[in-house]
């Protein structure tokens, strides 16, 4: 679960990217995060992974107050989160397989278990056949799917995604959304930043709409 209570985020240059944001996402919920370019969507997600720290207010993730997290606890906190980045952030000198395995290696799993889970994750995004390829050989959309496989392979309790389907064709992006929805069915808290209102319409999911850093009534959804 994720709870924001009157959260403000001011960047060092004084820019206020989030203003008085409060919401509650229970476990097993699937939520879309929308808003114009620069509205503060990525900033909000970064607060959840503790890549940024709220300037004011409380961010609670699974009952844990992130501003009370010790330095050495941050890594463990992030391991409980699956994150699909806006840029794909793949390692270009490792195969697809190894890229997807990374969170499991970091967590220190057994080799066999890693192999099994990686294949399952790649299968879900339709890239099992390219497991041994290097990312440079993949198209933009394929790389994005590798990022998605990496986010879900660790069976996280929380799943964040920042424009996960920006480079995918409509058909593929529908499939990916169905995958995210399946995760929310098994009690994972799913939060997806997107511009694509088709998905919002298609899934009966909650919507958080940002406008210049404030949560607004979901006016934008047609």
């Amino acid at each position: 679960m994720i709870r924001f209570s009157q959260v403000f985020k001011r960047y060092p240059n004084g820019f206020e990217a989030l203003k008085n944001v409060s919401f509650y996402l229970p476990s097993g919920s699937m939520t879309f995060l929308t808003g114009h370019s620069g509205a503060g969507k990525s900033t909000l997600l970064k607060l959840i992974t503790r890549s940024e720290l709220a300037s004011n207010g409380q961010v609670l993730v699974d009952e844990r107050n992130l501003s009370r997290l010790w330095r050495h606890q941050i890594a463990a906190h992030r391991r409980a989160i699956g994150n699909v980045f806006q840029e794909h952030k793949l390692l270009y000198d490792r195969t697809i397989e190894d890229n997807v395995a990374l969170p499991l290696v970091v967590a220190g799993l057994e080799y066999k278990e890693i192999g099994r889970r990686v294949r399952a994750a790649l299968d879900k995004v339709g890239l099992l056949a390219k497991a041994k390829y290097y990312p440079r050989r993949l198209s933009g959309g394929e790389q994005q799917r590798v990022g998605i496989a990496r986010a879900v392979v660790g069976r996280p309790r929380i799943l964040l995604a920042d424009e996960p389907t920006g480079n995918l064709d409509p058909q593929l992006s529908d499939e990916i959304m169905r995958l995210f929805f399946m995760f929310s069915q098994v009690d994972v808290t799913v939060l997806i930043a997107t511009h694509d209102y088709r998905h919002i319409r298609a899934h009966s999911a909650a919507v958080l709409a940002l406008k210049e850093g404030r949560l607004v009534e979901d006016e934008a959804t047609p």
Partner: protein
Amino acid sequence: MTYLLRHLQVLFDTLGRMWKAPLPTLMTLTMLGIAMALPLVLYKIVDSLAEVAGQWHERPRISLFLNFANDRNMDERAIAFARNLLQMPAIDDIEYISPSAALAEFKRVSGFGLAMDNLPENPLPPLLAVYPYPTQERAQLEQLFAQLAAMPEVASASLDQAWLQRLAAILALFKRGVWMLSVLMAVGVMLIISNTVRLGVVNRSDEIEIIDQIGGPRAFIRRPFLYFGALHGLFGALFAAVIGHAGLYLLGKPIATLAALYDSSFKIGWFDSTAIAAVALSAAALGWVAARITVDWRLHRLIPVAS
């Protein structure tokens, strides 16, 4: 068990990375080898010289002029006296120089050869050259000298002290040289390794950022670089041994020529393996420390903790 296994895996992974980029690795190891070979070679030369100097060239010597000149049994008495003296624990060796031997040596050394041939009789007294153990302290040496000078058989005695000062001065010079070079080269080794680690961090900065985002602990991120630094120190020392041996080989010829001209068969040996092992371990430790400092410094910038 798993912990050990993971360390081993990082070790082999790091070795694999070094192996897969042979040219850069060789370049760095060559630099490190050169840096470490220099003090090794200089130390070896100084060490060999000090050894030779101690036992041969500038040994402390007490000259005893005996008062049995013009005695028929002069030689026998002098040798018997020398035997007695050799019982003293401080004395390492005694050389008897008879008046005739002394005159011959004098002719040779002074160049007065022809001119001395018309001396009516040998004016020189019998002489004992007493060599104390070189380990003697200066005070002990002077005490021994006083003791010997006071003996009734001794007409006069002299202690050559210049050797002490000269030896001390030479050793001071060389020691300072070796010391300066070692410090410089330790600094050099750390800088080279630090630079290489920095290159590694930059090269893998994407990886580091991603692993940090994914929840990799700092120790996990740091570990390969620590191995990287330590391995470079270790292999660098082995390169240094090879380069150093090549240097000793190339210097061996002119050193032998020079030594022959000074009537010495002085030769520089090879490094002994314990010395190399010691250098290798220190270098590995230096590399580890350099890597640790560098990685922390870079990680501080690359993946700052938001606060």
